[in-house]
C-alpha cells in the first residue's frame, strides 16, 4: 500500500486475485510465474558456479567458501524480515542503521566495562525499540513506511555515530569473535551466520507457506482493506513485523561486529541496498502480495557467489561490485515489467489488426451496399 504511491502512477497494476473460488488449474496458473522465477534463479546459480570455477580454482576452496558465507550470511538473515515486510506492501530502509546502532552501542558499552551477556540483551532491546518506533509511526500514526524509514535511517545512523563517536572498538573477547574465523560446528567452509540463516529461513518459510499468519501477510499485501474486513489484524501484524525486523537487525549487528572483531563508525553502511536487492532478486514483488523464502534464499546464493566469482578476477573490487549490485536491483524490478510490456504490445498489435480487419470488412460491406 505504502509503496503504491511511489509507482508514480505509471506502474502496471500487479496481478490481483479475482473473486470467487478458483479451479486447481487456475491456481497452478497463479503459481506459474513464481515457479518460473525460481527456476530462472536455479539456472543463474548454476551459471554463476560455472563462471566462478572457470575464473579460478580457488573459487571452491574452503577458505573462499567460508569468506563468501560470512559475507552473505548477515545480509541474508536481514533479508528474511525484509521479505515479510515487503510482502505486506511496506518497506524498511532503516535496517543497516539499526545494525550500526546495535554494533556501535555494543562497542561503547564494552569499553565501559559492561558484561557481554548484559550488553547483548541491551542491544537486542534497543533493536526491538527501534523497530517498535518504525512500527508505531507506520501503523498507529498512519505514515508511509518509506518516509518513516528514510527518517529513521538517518536518525538511527546519526545516533550510532553519537553513541560511539569517531573511534573504533576492537577489544572484544576472542570467545565471541571466534564466529568470524571458526566454521559452524567445526565444518571449515560454513560460517555461523549462514547456518543461522538456514535455520531461520526454514522456520520463516514454513510460517509463510503453511500457517494462517503467513497466508494473511500475502492477503495484506494484495489488498489491505479486504484483509482487514476479512478479520486480519493488519496493524498488529505490521507492527510485529517492524519490531521483528528491528530485533533481527540488532542481532545481526552484534554478530557482524564479532565477525569483524571491531565496531566503528559507518559499519554496515549501504547494507539496505544489498538486502533489498537480494529480496527483490528473489522474486518478491515490491508492490506486495507475492514472493517466497525459497526465492530469496536462492537469490542470496546467486548474489554471494557472483560477488565471490567477480572478486576473484584481478580487475574487480568491492566498489565495482556496487555497480553490479545496483544493476541487479534495477533488473530484478524491470524484467517482470518487460514481460508485461511484451504482452501489452502483443495485445495492442492484435487489437490494431482486429480493427484494421473490421474496417476493411465494413468498407467492403459499404461498397457492396453502394453497388
Amino acid at each position: 500500500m505504502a509503496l503504491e504511491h511511489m509507482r508514480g502512477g505509471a506502474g502496471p497494476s500487479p496481478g490481483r486475485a479475482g473473486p470467487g473460488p478458483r479451479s486447481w488449474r487456475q491456481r497452478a496458473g497463479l503459481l506459474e510465474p513464481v515457479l518460473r522465477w525460481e527456476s530462472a534463479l536455479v539456472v543463474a546459480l548454476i551459471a554463476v558456479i560455472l563462471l566462478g570455477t572457470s575464473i579460478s580454482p580457488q573459487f571452491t576452496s574452503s577458505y573462499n567458501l567460508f569468506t563468501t558465507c560470512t559475507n552473505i550470511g548477515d545480509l541474508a538473515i536481514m533479508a528474511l524480515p525484509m521479505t515479510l515486510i515487503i510482502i505486506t506492501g511496506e518497506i524498511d530502509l532503516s535496517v543497516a542503521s539499526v545494525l550500526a546502532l546495535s554494533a556501535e552501542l555494543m562497542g561503547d558499552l564494552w569499553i565501559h566495562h559492561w558484561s557481554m551477556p548484559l550488553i547483548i540483551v541491551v542491544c537486542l532491546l534497543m533493536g526491538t525499540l527501534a523497530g517498535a518506533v518504525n512500527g508505531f509511526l507506520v501503523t498507529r500514526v498512519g505514515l508511509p513506511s518509506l518516509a518513516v524509514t528514510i527518517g529513521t535511517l538517518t536518525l538511527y545512523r546519526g545516533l550510532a555515530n553519537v553513541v560511539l563517536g569517531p573511534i573504533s572498538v576492537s577489544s572484544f573477547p576472542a570467545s565471541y569473535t571466534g564466529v568470524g574465523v571458526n566454521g559452524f560446528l567445526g565444518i571449515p567452509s560454513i560460517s555461523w551466520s549462514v547456518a543461522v540463516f538456514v535455520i531461520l529461513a526454514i522456520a520463516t518459510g514454513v510460517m509463510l507457506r503453511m500457517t494462517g499468519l503467513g497466508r494473511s501477510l500475502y492477503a495484506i499485501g494484495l489488498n489491505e482493506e479486504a484483509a482487514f474486513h476479512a478479520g486480519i489484524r493488519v496493524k498488529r501484524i505490521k507492527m510485529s513485523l517492524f519490531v521483528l525486523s528491528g530485533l533481527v537487525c540488532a542481532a545481526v549487528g552484534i554478530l557482524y561486529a564479532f565477525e569483524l572483531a571491531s565496531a566503528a563508525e559507518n559499519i554496515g553502511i549501504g547494507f539496505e541496498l544489498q538486502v533489498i536487492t537480494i529480496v527483490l532478486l528473489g522474486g518478491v514483488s515490491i508492490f506486495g502480495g507475492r514472493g517466497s523464502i525459497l526465492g530469496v534464499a536462492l537469490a542470496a546464493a546467486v548474489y554471494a557467489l557472483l560477488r565471490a566469482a567477480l572478486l576473484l578476477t584481478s580487475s574487480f573490487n568491492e566498489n565495482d561490485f556496487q555497480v553490479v549490485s545496483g544493476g541487479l536491483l534495477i533488473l530484478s524490478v524491470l524484467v517482470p515489467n518487460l514481460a508485461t510490456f511484451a504482452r501489452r504490445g502483443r495485445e495492442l498489435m492484435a487489437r490494431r489488426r482486429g480493427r484494421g480487419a473490421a474496417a476493411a470488412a465494413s468498407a467492403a460491406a459499404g461498397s457492396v451496399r453502394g453497388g
Partner: protein
Amino acid sequence: MSTATETTPSPSAPTAEGTLANPRSLVDFVLRARTFGIVGILALFVLITTLIQPRFLSGSNIRFVLSDATLYALLAIGQTFVVLTRNVDLSVGSVVGFSAYVSANMFQTHPGIAIPVVFAVGIGLGLACGLVTGVITAIGRVPSLVVTLAMLYIIRGVDTIVVGSGQVVANSLPDSFINIFHATLLGIPVLAWVTAGLVAIAAYYLRSYRSGRELYAIGSDPDAARLAGIPIAKRIFFTFVLSGAVAGLGGVFWATQYNTIDATAATGLELQVIAAVVVGGVAIFGGSGSVVGAALGALLLQTINVALNVLGVPSLWTEAIAGFLLLVAITLDRGIQLRLAAALRKRRSHLGA
C-alpha cells in the same frame, strides 16, 4: 434541502458560492500557515540562539549560514519537483559527488578552461544521470524508490572507478573558481542570489504553468490525472531530468565550496535534502507543497545545525537531528492533513444540509 432555498436561488446564491469557495481558501490558508510556521520556527531559533550567543547574528555568521544552506536549497528544488509527483530521488548525493569531481577535475585535465564550460560539464553530467533514472522510472515503469536507490550506488560506484585513488585538491583549482563561493553581492553570497533566483523561477513555473500544475495533479491522484489526459510518464521523466541537472549544478557548487574532492564527496547528502523538503512542507505522498517552502526547510535545517554548533553541541548530532526533524515534520503534516480533511467534510455536510 428546503423548498424555500430551491425556489429562491438568487438571494442565497452569493452565500452558497462563498461557502463553495471556502474549502479552497481553507486549504490555501493552511498551506500558507505551514510555510509561515517554518519562518516562525526559524525566527524563534535565531532569537533564542542569539540571546545565548550574540555573535550568532553577526554579518559573517549570517553569510556562513546562507552559503551553507545554498546547496541544500538548490537541491531541494529538484527534489520538490520529484516528490510532488509521488516519487523520490535518492540518487542526488551521488550525482553531486560525481559532478563535483568531474567538473573540478576539468581544471587539471584542461588547464585554463573557461569556468562556464566547467559549469556546463557539471550540469550536463547531472542531466545524463537524470536521463537514465528518468527512462528507467517513467518508461520502464519501475518504482522510483528502487531505481534511485540503485542509482545511488551505481553512480557512486562509477564515481569511485573514475576517481580511483586520486582526488582534486584546492591548489589545482584557479582562484577565480574558488572565489565564486566567497563572492558576495549586497552582503549576501552570490550563489545564494543565484539559488534564490532559481527558486523564484521554479515557484513561478509550478504556480502558473499548466505543466507545472499537472505535477500536482499527478501527485494528488495518479488515476484521475491519467483520465484527465495528463502525459504522466513524460512529466515524471522531466522531473527526474530536472533533478539530475540541478544536482549536477549542485556538484559544481560543492566543488567551489569544499575544493578538496575525493570519491566519498557528498555521501548521504540525499537524506538531508529529503529532510529539508519534507520539513519545508512538501507532502511525501505528493501533490502538495512549494519550492519556497522546501528552500526555507533547507535554511531551517542548516540554521539549526550552525546554531547547535555555536551553542557547543558537537556536529556528530547533525544527522540524528535531520532524521528526527523529518519524522516530526511528517507526523505533524499527517495531523494537519487529517484535521483539514475533517474540517472540509464538516463544511461539505453543512452545505448539503
